[in-house]
């Protein structure tokens, strides 16, 4: 029951958290920034609208937003929020989660290519490329976690006191993992320095250019999906970063959502202080995450011995 409540709250809160990034950026820019509920306003506005479809598009174009939101909700089902066991959990569920995100990617790309727009094709090509390295890094993390716990599901890593256990057995190298996960999060969610959602030139975009032609509720679905995905990653980072649990459930909850807030703000800070990388530098940046986890794994192996 608690899990369901948490899931619902996650579904509802995710847009709010994303708005926090905007707030932080505005703060760094010396501006007031949009209200914290801006994302809800946008979503409602979009839900109210109709859509314009390109004549080039087909059914797949409409499937894109649907599938990406669908998978985003799916992965939240597997996510242990605030240390509570997730709704669904089984041996190997994390592999399914990674592949579900790939499924979403497939449809986002397919929807982009459906429009026959050269810009969207360009974005799609990038979208197809960078996550490959992310996936490798994620699997590398998985290997490390598997060494530490001997389990292969999200709950075993992030539920309850498990993250603390990870720290206890791996120690300092886990810092690398947190950093790597942060990089993967930035990449997968199209944040600076990989992608700049606020840029004005389509040529330099990745994710935003792919959804140029979506409008109305379809576009709302995409936005929502993006919020959930970011929420998923941010939760993982938050749990790893502050693994402590208290015996008081309410305190746990508050602590978790507080840390989550910090993670979102960290994203905002990163976006504010960094510039977007040149496209050909991005693979190196993403590869760093892989290298970090690999390094951490090697050290941990020695450490355990």
């Amino acid at each position: 029951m608690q899990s369901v409540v948490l899931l619902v709250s996650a579904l509802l809160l995710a847009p709010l958290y994303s708005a926090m990034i905007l707030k932080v950026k505005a703060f760094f820019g010396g501006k007031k920034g949009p209200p914290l509920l801006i994302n809800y306003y946008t979503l409602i506005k979009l839900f109210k609208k109709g859509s314009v479809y390109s004549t080039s598009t087909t059914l797949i174009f409409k499937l894109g937003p649907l599938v990406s939101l669908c998978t985003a909700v799916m992965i939240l089902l597997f996510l242990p929020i605030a240390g509570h066991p997730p709704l669904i959990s089984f041996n190997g569920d994390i592999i399914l989660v990674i592949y579900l995100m790939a499924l979403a990617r497939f449809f986002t790309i397919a929807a982009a290519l459906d429009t026959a727009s050269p810009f969207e094709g360009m974005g799609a090509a990038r979208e197809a490329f960078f996550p490959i390295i992310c996936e490798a890094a994620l699997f590398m993390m998985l290997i490390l976690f598997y060494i530490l716990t001997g389990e292969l599901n999200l709950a075993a890593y992030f539920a309850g006191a498990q993250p603390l256990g990870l720290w206890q057995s791996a120690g300092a190298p886990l810092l690398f993992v947190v950093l790597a996960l942060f990089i993967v999060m930035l990449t997968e969610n199209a944040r600076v320095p990989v992608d700049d959602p606020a840029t004005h030139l389509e040529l330099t975009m990745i994710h935003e250019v792919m959804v140029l032609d979506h409008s109305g509720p379809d576009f709302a679905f995409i936005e929502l999906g993006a919020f959930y995905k970011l929420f998923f990653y941010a939760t993982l980072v938050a749990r790893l970063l502050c693994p402590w649990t208290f015996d008081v459930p309410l305190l746990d909850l508050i602590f978790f959502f507080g840390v989550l807030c910090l993670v979102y703000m960290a994203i905002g800070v990163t976006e504010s202080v960094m510039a977007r990388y040149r496209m050909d530098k991005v693979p190196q940046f993403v590869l760093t995450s892989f290298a970090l986890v690999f390094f951490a794994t090697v050290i941990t192996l020695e450490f355990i011995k």
Partner: protein
Amino acid sequence: MQPFFLSLLIISCGGILPLFLWRRPLLMRGAGATLIAAGSLLGLVDAARQLYAPVAVTATVDLLNTVPITFTSDSLSAFFLVAIFAVSGLTAVYSFHYMDKSDHAVRTAVHYLFFSLLIAAMALVVTADDMIAFLLCWEIMSLSSFFLVVYSYEKEQNRRAAFLYAVFSQVGAMFILAAFGVMYACTESFAFAGASGMPAAIKLLVFILAMVGFGSKAGLFPLHIWLPQAHPAAPSHISALMSGVMIKTGIYGIIRLYAILEWHAPVLGQIVLAAGLVSGVMGVIYALGQKDLKKVLAFSSVENVGIILIGMGVGMIGVSAGKPIMAVLGFAGGLLHVLNHALFKSLLFMGAGMVLHRTGTGVIDHLGGLIKRMPITGTTFLIGALAIPGLPPFNGFVSEFLIYIGAFNGIALGKTNFVLSLLAIVGMALIGGLALAAFTRVFGIVFQGEPRSPSAQAIEQGPTMLLPMIVAAAACVVIGVFPTAFLTMAIQAVEPLQLGYGRIPLTPFIQITATITRAAVVLFAVFLILLALRKLLYSGKTVTRSGTWGCGFTQPSARMQYTGSSYAASILAFFKPLVPIEEDHPPVIGRFPVKTHYQSRTRDIAEHQMDRLIVKPVLFLFDKLRWLQHGDIHLYIGYILLAIVVALFFV
């Protein structure tokens, strides 16, 4: 065994009958397709039945008075038979309309002959129980598929493809023969049964020789060169058959040999796993770089053979390390991927065949927007393209999932096996991501967007071509959502491998597939809810259509679309040392744009190195030796004297 031979007989009739009917093309194709499909169906049912009630059945034929050749069907054979007959049946049906354009009636009739021969030979290869029977059927398989590859011989590149294929087949067969020779030297018997008693060093030699031989048929990476050439050359249903199941006979050879040798040393698993990794990663990178639709699919076969071998390797390592769960997961995952790949690859080839058949071109960058005029082809192709990178809830995911879990079991092992398991996992992740890129590229460029050339305006036709695609696509979904029954089949097939586990308990493995089914059901549920939500949101809204937003360009043309080449360019650049790219474009001159051109081509590094290191030196050496026959009789007589003198030294 009886229904098995009956099915082969029916299939053979489907090959022979068209030879007499070639004056009436419709009847000819009908007879061929129907009989082959019927025979395959019978064989499929029989093989599936055998998988559920596994009993080894044997038949022996005496040959040349002295050499008895034996065919035995155990559950491993039956599993491969299921894949073979399933794909054969589908492709046979498909051929009925696919071959209708051909104005060469006799050639089509001959094509049916070799088609049926190929199916029969494949079925016999996987049931062969001694060296002679195996080689006999193996060679017939190579020969008949050669004729199918050379079907459209008018084109220079097809002739070259057939040449390469023939050479690789023969060299591969020779390696297999050598492996058998070494075995025979040890056991003094043509039967496979006695091979387990050989010394370890001999077993290793046999395995490596056979690995080269079978690898060249399976399209293992450095030996794959024939594959991307032969598949585009053959008619599409033949490509489907060859890529779907024929190359799997190589896999069968490797796994059968493993069972025969009964040698559970870690080195075998390490070899297989390493070979699989190289093949998988290189295959998919090259798939990304191809311009021809069928070549993409061909290289993707190289990749999938790699994945299968990774599974087998994981299994072998599991056996050697004494981890039954890992072993069974690896083998079962690999075997299941054999079936899965057979299904989605034949589906994709049939889709490609429809494209080729209707538009007349297989060049990706000349196509586009086909899904609008080919809805069924497009949709089924989409399912294939989703299944092949292993996305849930399709069948590719199931087998890869099993292999992943198997490989994770290997993480806890000692140094070498740990590193290999790690590489297997990361490699599969990499392969999955790249395959996704490769197939979004193919699907996106070929079926989506706008037509890039006038020939891409074609529509789909031919119900017998559409039906097999629908069936195959449905099978992909069914296996993806309800994998339990198929995993049971695969585990049955693992049992004859002599792993020493006796009857393998099904429960721990069925649990895994049950969770997949559960997750798939949840996924569908969420999807349906969201679909309903979307319906609700759109009810009563105005939906209009307009041109694509051109980012400021007011008159975008179809030629301005992103091409397949540019789509792949940045990924290929990342893997540059492995994929040499040749580019041809003039430098920019002057301030104003002038007419220019750009061409790029990926060069197969294996082909290049093989040419440089083997072909060129051999040719050079033999070219020099040709001087010997220089036409002067005086020296010829000198040779005789020389021969005498040299031979006299032996006395």
